């Protein structure tokens, strides 16, 4: 089944009756569970109408509210509903401002008063291929085609700048261009400079570079179309009838892709891939078939396919996804392949939390979440057993459980298609995450062996290294601020853009603290955001976020001592802020003596 139909979502045979039951009570959680069923267009439309009627405003139970401006060169009206429903699936309430057909440039330049009043926190630019390739002719030579490409790219970049001027602090998402043009030359289309198909391909490549430079997120539907086929994504008849670049059928996936970006920007992507073992990581049952009887690795196509599943899990871990195991097995049997099977790609050290026993899997998943100090909504369970999948969906609806085929060869692509781990970038902490959780096991062992707390703390040889916010750490700071868990007293969220604005404000303090010890680097574990009060005598701490992995290790006391020291220091002045220097000097000269905390700590 193609990704265009969202095959990782389960079919819910009783969906219609559950909708009727939900209509009776405005229950955000029940509505979110309805959005978790594999939808078709009528289902999506029905859910969208229900959503608009029941929750015209974001409910308290939803995640951070999103205000999305959807601006396009073609018709975008048919995209709004699927975006709302997909966002609901991710726990987000999205208010959408839809631009008129072909008016994106005028809306931004005007700017359109309705758009400005809407005050979006995210602007999505949806540009169609015919608009982007306008003016192209097969008679153009290399130079003329290159000039046209440069001009088109600059126009798009200026739209990004206009969007940011219209809505300071807003995130900008640029949709890549669908390859809808038929070829003129054929398989060597790149040899025809004036080919629209080739132009779009080059424009998409340039967009990727420009988006990287300008801090714009890409909605790479060209890549999605390459996977599912352009025929699934674009219907020429719908274009001629209604100027719809994205076909009706593809809107469901389009909405999900947009929702993934919105969720990732708010730190709500999943963090942990929980792996079943028998018939998920290898063929057969280790308890029955033994080490020599399971199917894994070279020698059979099925064995190679299971090895490929492990390779994919390992690659995810290397880019920051935490791996865990939850298996109904005797523990010794479960560990045996990890320790002794020559074809295993995954080893004990790759697994941050290993649960193998005969408890039900819901209990196992709760234990994994507790052990990793993460919420259940951070978990994705990969399990071949449909009964287990159904059980977890019923018992722990926060856990995401993809439908997978019996054929393991199809599993890696299914996981990738589902986009659970969507990320806007990779931080150094992401790359080191598996090692950090592995090191935690060694710390626990040391704590159990120690006889007194000071002795244990001293033996850890800790160093708390702090820095003011900087460009390099911004992504991790936003991750920490946005990931909701326990110890959360407010629901304030932030974006990279908002944090960047903080860097330039001399009245505000942003501190990031990294903890190192004899077992390794714990990464950035504390984020502090504060601002000097108007009278200059108090420091208002609006955000105090702390990873629970390090609670009880004096990080909280050390952080407070650091805050006090920083509060008493005269504010440093960026050179470009000289005009405000005198005023700031006065503030700095009056020793700050009060810390007011309007804050939260957070598990990260």
């Amino acid at each position, binding site marked *: 089944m193609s990704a265009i139909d969202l095959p990782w979502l389960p079919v819910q045979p009783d969906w219609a009756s559950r909708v009727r039951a939900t209509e009776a009570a405005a229950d955000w959680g029940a509505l979110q569970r309805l959005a978790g069923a594999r939808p078709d267009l009528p289902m999506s439309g029905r859910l969208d109408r229900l959503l608009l009627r029941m929750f015209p405003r974001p409910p308290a139970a939803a995640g951070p509210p999103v205000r999305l401006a959807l601006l396009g060169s073609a018709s975008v009206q048919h995209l709004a509903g699927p975006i709302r429903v997909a966002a609901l699936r991710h726990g987000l309430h999205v208010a959408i401002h839809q631009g008129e057909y072909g008016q994106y440039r005028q809306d931004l330049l005007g700017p359109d008063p309705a758009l400005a009043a809407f005050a979006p926190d995210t602007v999505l630019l949806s540009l169609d291929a015919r608009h982007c390739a306008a003016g192209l002719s097969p008679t153009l030579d290399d130079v003329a085609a290159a000039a046209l490409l440069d001009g088109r790219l600059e126009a798009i970049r200026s739209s990004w700048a206009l969007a940011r001027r219209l809505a300071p602090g807003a995130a900008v998402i640029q949709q890549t261009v669908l390859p809808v043009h038929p070829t003129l030359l054929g398989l060597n289309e790149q040899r025809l400079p004036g080919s629209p198909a080739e132009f779009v391909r080059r424009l998409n490549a340039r967009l990727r570079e420009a988006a990287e430079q300008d801090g714009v997120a890409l909605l790479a539907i060209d890549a999605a179309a390459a996977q599912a086929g352009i025929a699934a994504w674009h219907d020429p008849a719908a274009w001629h009838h209604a100027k719809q670049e994205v076909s009706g059928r593809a809107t469901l996936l389009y909405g999900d892709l947009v929702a993934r970006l919105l969720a990732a920007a708010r730190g709500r992507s999943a963090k942990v891939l929980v792996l079943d073992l028998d018939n998920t990581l290898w063929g057969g049952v280790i308890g029955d078939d033994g080490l020599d009887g399971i199917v894994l690795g070279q020698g059979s196509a099925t064995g190679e396919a299971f090895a490929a599943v492990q390779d994919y899990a390992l690659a995810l871990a290397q880019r920051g996804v935490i791996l865990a195991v939850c298996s109904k097995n005797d523990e010794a049997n479960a560990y045996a392949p990890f320790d002794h099977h020559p074809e295993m790609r995954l080893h004990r050290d790759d697994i941050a939390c290993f649960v193998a026993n005969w408890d039900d899997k819901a209990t196992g998943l709760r234990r994994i979440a507790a052990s990793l100090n993460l919420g259940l909504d951070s978990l994705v369970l990969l399990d071949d057993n449909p009964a287990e999948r159904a059980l977890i969906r019923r018992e722990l609806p926060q856990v995401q459980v993809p439908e997978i085929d019996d054929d393991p060869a199809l599993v890696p692509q299914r996981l990738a298609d589902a986009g659970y781990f969507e990320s806007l970038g990779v931080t150094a902490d992401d790359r080191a995450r598996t090692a950090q959780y592995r090191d935690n096991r060694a710390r626990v062992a040391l704590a159990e062996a120690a006889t007194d707390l000071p002795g244990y703390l001293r033996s850890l040889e800790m160093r708390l290294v702090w820095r003011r916010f900087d460009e390099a750490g911004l992504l991790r700071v936003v991750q920490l601020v946005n990931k909701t868990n326990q110890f959360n007293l407010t629901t304030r969220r932030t974006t990279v853009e908002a944090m960047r604005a903080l860097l330039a404000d001399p009245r505000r303090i942003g501190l990031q603290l990294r903890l190192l010890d004899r077992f390794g680097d714990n990464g950035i574990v504390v984020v502090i955001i504060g601002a000097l009060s108007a009278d200059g005598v108090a420091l208002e701490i609006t955000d105090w976020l702390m990873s629970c992995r390090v609670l009880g290790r004096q990080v909280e006391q050390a952080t407070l001592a*650091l805050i006090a020291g920083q509060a008493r220091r005269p504010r440093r002045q960026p050179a470009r802020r000289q005009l405000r220097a005198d005023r700031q000097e006065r503030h700095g000269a009056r020793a700050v003596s009060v810390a007011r905390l309007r804050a939260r700590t957070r598990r990260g």
Partner: protein
Amino acid sequence: MVRGLYRSLGFVPEPAEDSADSPVRFVLQLEAAPRTELFMQVLEGSGDE
């Protein structure tokens, strides 16, 4: 739990009659912050680590 953590650091709720439903605001006179022997080094980073 988080309120207990703040209190342990010397913050006091404002207003004093703190309840689960009240606005969350804690105040600390820095001079009154409890002194704790720290078993760690606190260092300013260079940006390279």
